[in-house]
């Protein structure tokens, strides 16, 4: 395992151990709901479902259609805030 991969694994482990990952997830979810991201994606889901058919739609279909759009629809403010929190975390733990 090269050094980069090791570093990433360590950071991930630390994120999980400290519970920061869950906190970040909750924060992101709350922000996304607040800004209407979820509603937008749900509307898109409805289109997908209508297109595929209620009986035939699968999780894979939804993931394939929704995930790219979900990434793109995250508001910049939310993205910045989250990135800032991650950076802070990294900085804190890197400085230990």
């Amino acid at each position, binding site marked *: 395992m090269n050094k980069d991969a090791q570093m990433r694994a360590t*950071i991930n482990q630390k994120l999980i151990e400290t519970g920061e990952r869950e906190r970040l997830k909750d924060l992101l979810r709350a922000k996304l709901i607040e800004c209407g991201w979820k509603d937008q994606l749900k509307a898109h889901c409805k289109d997908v479902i209508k297109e595929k058919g209620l009986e035939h739609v699968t999780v894979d279909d939804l993931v394939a259609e929704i995930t790219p759009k979900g990434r793109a629809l995250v508001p910049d403010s939310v993205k910045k805030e989250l990135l800032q929190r991650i950076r802070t975390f990294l900085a804190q*733990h890197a400085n230990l």
Partner: protein
Amino acid sequence: MKMEDLPGSGLENSKLEAVAHEIYAELVEDACLGLCFEVHRAVKCGYFFLDDTDPDSTKDFGGGGQGSGGQGTWGQGFGDWGHRNGALQDTDRALGTGGHKERALGTKGHSFGAWGHRGGALGTRRHEDGALGTRGSGFGAWDGAPGMGLWGTQGQGFGDWGHGDRALRDTDRALGSGGHKERVLGTRGHAFGVLGGPPTSHPPLSPQQCGVISEHTKKMCTRSLRCPQHTDEQRRAVRVYLLGPSASLPESEAGADADGFDVAESQALMSRLQWDGASDISPSDSASSKASECVWGGTNNSESRKTKKKKPHLGLVSGGGAPPGLGSSKKKKPKPPPPHPPSIYDDIN
């Protein structure tokens, strides 16, 4: 590798930035996946498009369980268990939406708990014309007018039982002969205490039916009025008890007998045989003839026989004179004793 080993101060900003972006991307992907699963589940469970429901149409269909009659069966406003457009609606477990303005189940203020707890699945089917049926674990579904009886009477605003259409055919136990105008086991108000056991075990009493309740099977005899196994007395007893003192056996049946079988004679013979201690027990319905009063009336076998012998109508009238629910609702129904053998007959004789 420890965090301390991370080249925190020495790590290039780009690397740190890349890691941060990677974590962010994972988080966003998690959120997307969560949404996809949620949506998929909602779709498969059938509530995804509920949000699209037009509130006006919901109100029009009596949604929310507050039909014209007020609360639903369990006071929770389950709504109308039916469907307006004529198609039968399966409501296995889903609490029905839409449907008639009338309440399909329940009466105001009266507890149908005994009915409600049987089986759990309510599966009622309903037709637009009021025909009711049951499916699955089979409840008697009925239209309840406030304060009305159990197996309703049309005259008292009870549901129409069937009209002999499709819905009736769906019932596990034929729930009443549709279209009968006369009272079909109509008891007023709080009859459920009296019935005690699961009322579904007694299909509505048709005028053309013997109706004597078996002690063991707790079911009504479904044969015709000429059923040789039971006497007119027993049939009358059941009717008096269930329909009130004014109830009487339909006369036409015997008169319309075309096969030359003399009902009166046979009944007398049967009754003589019974009193003589000869067995009236058939293998199929071992004690049905003895059981009619026991099941709902709260008297046991020997008592009913004694009553019959001394005052043939006393027990019957007292059993049915008062509103059936009131008279004996406080009594506990003793379990019918196992079929006794000859000792009872010896006593009687």
